[in-house]
């Protein structure tokens, strides 16, 4: 009788341990492709930064545009940033907004990551979160500067993983954009937002031409 009890307990432990192992392996398998997306994107950023001063804003834009399109789910992010206004817009407006939003995203990267002085990206952790999304936590380390944490939320998109949000030192890029864009649409209308974003792209491009 005692032996049966012990065997039962042993079986329960074995089952629990095997479940945990399966969960760990599954998580590792799930997060690996998402981590690879971030590693590829950050490598491209470093390439653009290293060549930055020589190739200028437009050179960096050309390097970064395909990498941003490949790694970010820009159409989805664009939709989220206009919140409840999205379904009220026509397909033509959707297309126009996604186009200008994509340009703005690439232009922002090209404007901000303009030179290299020994910066490094370090992946610190990756977790499965929510309903099958992955959070990849990284740090941007630069000599003489405070470390910046950059956390990427990735979601499955077809067969790939794509970035749907970036959180820098606890500040969500998506939330900031949504708060601003919905306020502008509310106050001035969608065409005004579109014009503002176009002018931002132009400003970033002109201001950084020499950079």
């Amino acid at each position: 009788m005692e032996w049966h009890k012990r065997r039962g307990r042993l079986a329960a432990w074995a089952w629990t341990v095997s479940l945990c192992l399966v969960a760990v392996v599954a998580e590792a398998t799930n997060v690996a492709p998402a981590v690879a997306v971030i590693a590829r994107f950050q490598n491209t950023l470093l390439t653009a930064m290293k060549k930055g001063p020589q190739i200028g804003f437009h050179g960096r834009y050309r390097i970064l545009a395909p990498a941003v399109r490949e790694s970010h789910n820009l159409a989805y992010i664009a939709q989220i940033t206009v919140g409840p206004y999205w379904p009220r817009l026509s397909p033509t407006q959707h297309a126009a907004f996604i186009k200008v939003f994509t340009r703005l995203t690439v232009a922002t990267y090209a404007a901000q990551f303009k030179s290299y002085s020994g910066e490094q990206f370090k992946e610190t952790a990756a977790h499965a979160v929510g309903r099958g999304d992955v959070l990849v936590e990284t740090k941007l380390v630069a000599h003489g500067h405070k470390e910046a944490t950059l956390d990427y939320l990735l979601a499955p998109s077809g067969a790939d993983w794509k970035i749907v949000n970036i959180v820098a030192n606890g500040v969500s890029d998506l939330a900031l954009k949504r708060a601003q864009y919905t306020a502008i649409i509310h106050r001035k209308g969608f065409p005004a937002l579109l014009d503002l974003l176009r002018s931002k792209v132009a400003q970033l491009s002109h201001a950084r031409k020499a950079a």
Partner: protein
Amino acid sequence: MSRGAMADGVPRLRRQGWRRLALCGCLTLLVVGCATTGGGAGHRVDPLEPMNRRFYAFNSATDRLIMTPVTHMYTAVTPRPLRASLTHFFRNVAYPDVIVNDFLQGRLRQGVSDIGRFLMNSTVGVFGLFDVASHVGLKAHTEDAGLTLAHWGVGRGPYLVLPFIGPDTLRNTPSLIMGVVTNVLFYVGNSALTLPLTVFDVINSRANASSSLRYVRENAVDQYIFTRDAYLQHRDYLLHGGHLPLKAVEQMMLPPQATPSAHAPDPPPFAARRLPQKHRRSVRGPWLAKGVVVRPPAPGG
């Protein structure tokens, strides 16, 4: 998000001195008065938005007309290593504020580590001019009275923009006073020394904030909302010890709209389509029904 531009959150210009102390006291009373007469605005993040926007415009104009040219001159005449040393010095003389709040929050180990950091930088680091403590593993922490109050369960209160100071919240206003009385310079008692140092502190802080301010100018389509939301999110992040809590990930990805006053609550009349479980988004805003997603066509722009 840009490379390190938001690294320090939204910059705050720190000042010391009796004048500031008095100003903060008056403003706190004024704001408390405004907030408590606001009636049912308790649930709103920014019930004082019209006043805040006016102060924001005032601060922006002051910065453009006075601080920007002064900062340009300052950065032109001071080499980068000197500015770095001055930054270390001013952070070090203000560090007792962190230590006191460590203990008030019951973070004993962190408090002891921060005492070690302060002593080491004040001695080996030549009055804090050099941050030697970081090189021996004594990391700098960020604590203040606002974070302590949050730790004790005090609500955030309304968002504020204070003239000459910048973004803040009602809960955080005591840290303006505590920051002064815990600063080493407060006890020096020689105004011929502390006054110029205070001026240098303000200018140096502004110089350090230049990249963040430039990022806001270049990228924000509504600078007021950008600054407010970035400030509030960053404070929440500091409240969690500089970590992104996994449980809060979904909320942090899409926090509720900060300006319900500015946006009429729109019913979600959209033609949402249900997707298979594996394709459903885990990030949801208040306008996204649970488990319902609107996924646009394949990306490509």
